[in-house]
């Protein structure tokens, strides 16, 4: 079975980084460490594991960052090579044909670590302390682990029973493939600890930014939700998903200032947004976030940052809290503990997030797909996915909400 495999090859890694720095994200793929090749289906690691045949598998910003050779070296010990990427997956179980989405985090239960770490014991699987240990090879998630396979392979992947979430019939495949990024957004929204009186600013309106805006609007209904979006289609979607004010990212600080009726000093608003959610993860975005969050406010980092250079004087002086929001697990929703993925399914359904899937490619056109994903904003797209449904078209049991594979 064909699939895409990411190998440890420093020369190709460097070439990809060089190429993408000139050509743009996703452009280094032809010279990088990703190969389209025959892939054996992974072995089942245990009795509670299932084979999953991917239907749609999304291309995420963290995938692109890895392919571009730009991901932080922090991750070196928590991935294992060679691995098949793809952690945003809707697929079918090999044994029952049931449609499922994968919660890809490889926590203690999946790794056979017993007793589980404190985070996993509390249901915070995203915070698992054992991602490099247990009976599996190291790997934060399916899609970064050599033992599990990933969504970018026709040969499929393996997932522990605890990682499977049945997909209701009402959700299309496109909706379902958006559940994983939406779960990240839900987790970020909960990390924001906001309320209906707050001003919340979301920086960035790619997949994560739009899903975060949707989750924010659905879960919190903040007093005012502002989104910085660079492209026209992103602005339109942000408005449709519940943002009150949508502006160009360069205008977001001014919009927050207007909203909060703040003064300015030292290039920073004197009051500002109660919460800023940074869905970009760059020097510029973090600097911008710190300049527009109010004193004692909260900055939530959702976009995966690497090494950044930021002046933290205002953070210190204004006692700003900066927190990361990675993955998902269990959320406290109005005093009730709920799985993040369950909440995400609800948000996806309520907001119709399947509409964010802009283009679908077969695996063998991976170079085009990744270039498209790397330039999604400029090219009027949001989420680009691999479509592995061709072999299953005869099934006809799933809602078919989109046209044929481009």
């Amino acid at each position, binding site marked *: 079975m064909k699939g895409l495999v990411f190998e440890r090859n420093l020369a190709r890694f460097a070439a990809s980084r060089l190429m993408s720095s000139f050509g743009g994200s996703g452009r280094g793929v032809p010279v990088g460490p990703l190969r389209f090749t025959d892939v054996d289906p992974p072995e089942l690691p245990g009795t509670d594991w299932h084979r999953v045949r991917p239907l749609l598998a999304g291309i995420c910003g963290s995938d692109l960052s890895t392919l571009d050779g730009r991901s932080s070296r922090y991750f070196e010990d928590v991935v294992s090579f060679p691995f098949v990427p793809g952690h945003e997956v809707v697929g079918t179980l090999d044994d029952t044909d049931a449609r499922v989405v994968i919660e890809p985090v490889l926590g203690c239960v999946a790794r056979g670590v017993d007793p589980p770490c404190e985070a996993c014991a509390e249901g915070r699987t995203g915070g698992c302390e054992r991602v490099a240990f247990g009976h599996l090879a190291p790997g934060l998630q399916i899609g970064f682990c050599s033992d599990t396979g990933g969504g970018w392979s026709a040969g499929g992947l393996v997932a522990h029973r605890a990682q499977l979430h049945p997909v209701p019939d009402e959700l299309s495949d496109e909706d379902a493939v958006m559940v994983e990024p939406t779960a990240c957004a839900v987790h970020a929204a909960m990390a924001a600890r906001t309320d209906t009186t707050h001003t919340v600013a979301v920086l960035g309106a790619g997949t994560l930014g739009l899903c975060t805006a949707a989750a924010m609007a659905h879960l919190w209904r903040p007093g005012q939700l502002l989104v910085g979006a660079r492209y026209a289609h992103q602005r339109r979607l942000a408005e449709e998903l519940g943002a009150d*004010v949508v*502006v160009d990212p360069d205008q977001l600080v*001014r919009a927050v200032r*207007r909203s909060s*009726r*703040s*003064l300015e000093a030292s290039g920073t608003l004197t009051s500002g947004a109660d919460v800023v959610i940074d869905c970009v993860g760059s020097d510029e975005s973090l600097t911008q976030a710190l300049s527009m969050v109010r004193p004692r406010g909260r900055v939530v980092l959702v976009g995966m940052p690497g090494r950044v250079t930021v002046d933290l004087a205002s953070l210190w002086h204004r006692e700003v809290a900066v927190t990361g929001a990675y993955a998902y697990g269990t959320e406290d929703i109005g005093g009730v503990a709920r799985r993040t993925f369950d909440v995400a399914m609800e948000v996806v359904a309520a907001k119709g997030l399947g509409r964010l899937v802009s283009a679908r490619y077969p695996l063998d056109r991976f170079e085009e797909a990744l270039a498209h994903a790397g330039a999604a904003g400029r090219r009027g797209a949001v989420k680009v996915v691999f479509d592995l449904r061709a072999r299953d078209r005869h099934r006809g049991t799933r809602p078919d909400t989109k046209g044929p594979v481009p």
Partner: protein
Amino acid sequence: MSPRPGFVLEVDRSTPSTLFWHGEGYRLEKLPVGSRVLYAPEPVDALADPVSAIRRALQEPLGDAEPLRSQLHPGMALTIAFDDVSLPLPPMRAPDVRQLVIEQVLELAAEAGVDDVVLIAALALHRRMTDAELRHALGERIFDAFAPHGLLWQHDAEDPDQLVHLGLTDQGEDVEINKRAATSDLLVYVNINLVAMDGGHKSVATGLASYKSLRHHHNAHTMTQSRSFMDQHRSELHSSNWRMGRLIAASGVKVFQIETNLNTDTFPEQFRFLQRREWEWTARDRAGFLATSKALQATPERVARSIFHSIRAPHKMSSVQAGEVEAVHARTTENVYAQQRLEVDGQSDILTMGLPYICPYNVNSIMNPILVACLGLGYFFNMYRGRPLVRAGGVVIMSHPTPWAFHPGHHPSYIDFFEQVLAETTDPAEIGKYEESFATDPWYVHLYRTGNAYHGVHPFYMWYWCAHALEHVGSVIIVGGDRAAVRRLGFKPASSMADALEMASDVVGRDPSITHLHSPPLLMADVL
């Protein structure tokens, strides 16, 4: 030889190309045969001895006012208010007419033993003037005598301690003006008059007023009821200011109004071709046009802006009158019309205009897109009496680069207005819902009071200024403008005049009548 009156040229095959201002530059356009080009009257003669004329005006006031000398006495509080940086345009060569007038007023005050004198720049909600601008307007001697002692003020419409509420007009309009001016024994107002809208009761009732007062006439309703606001008999803006001015007088505020007319001698010798009729250009004019055009093409925008804003106009005082406000203003307005009036036979389907680099609100600053709209649709469109130059449902074509650029120090609220308000609606009646939040925004208030920023509400006023034109015309096209900025204004961008005329044909048909307003110099069209 007396100056020639204005002229309406009908374009024929032999007519040379017409000069259009285009921001910090200009272009030559070949208008279709049959188009009309309106040329302003030539500048009227300057007063041979302006200082003597000022003295005479102060000694022989109009209306029921006493000569200024007899109104001055020891122990009195005297306030001299003067028009701000928005006049004249371009700024005039030194000595500025304000300096000439105020020197004479101060001389009389000194002779009378008046030692409580304060000068106030009547900013209304405009930006504070810089020291350099004040020095230019008042001259070094006055600036140095007053500024270091804290006796040269800039009106602060946001300082409650500096304001006094005088009451309501019979139409319920608040009249709140500068307390020092209102409580002085005498308020002398020194005006520069370039257009018929300025001066009269508007000087004090607007120039020294607060937002609470100004909002009664600076709004979309008033502007659509002012047809035009340059015609005081048909201007609701004028009527409102007059009601307020009369209440100010009735409240016991004693105003001695001094108004000056400047001639329309607008550009210095090296740019003289800008105010000549093209077919009369000399070899030197042509050379000047070519040389400056070429040079400007190779000049960065910022440098070109700096060059143009360094122009000092050779305006000269053509008349000065003083005394009771309404009597003075009647004479001033007469002079304005006498100098600028041009009779035009009927309206046209299309009105074209070339917009220059400057308007009242971007002296030493950037002509941002909102000001482009205001200059074209506010000022130039309203330079008429009777009927607009363009018919109802017609098309206005303006030429200007319209950059998406703002001076952050001068126009901070304009940026937000452009980004947020105009992104939602360009309807002057609709934008009012945002006005209060901009007007009371503490950051804008802070910048207005302590920096050199226009008040937070000012961009709304600029848009209200366009309200009459926006209601009247069917379409507005900007030639050579930044496309995104033009679209944000709600207008259509065109890359050339030919394209603009083609686009206009969708609205006015394929054989439209066209009138070009060849201005500046300024002209007032009496449209029959």
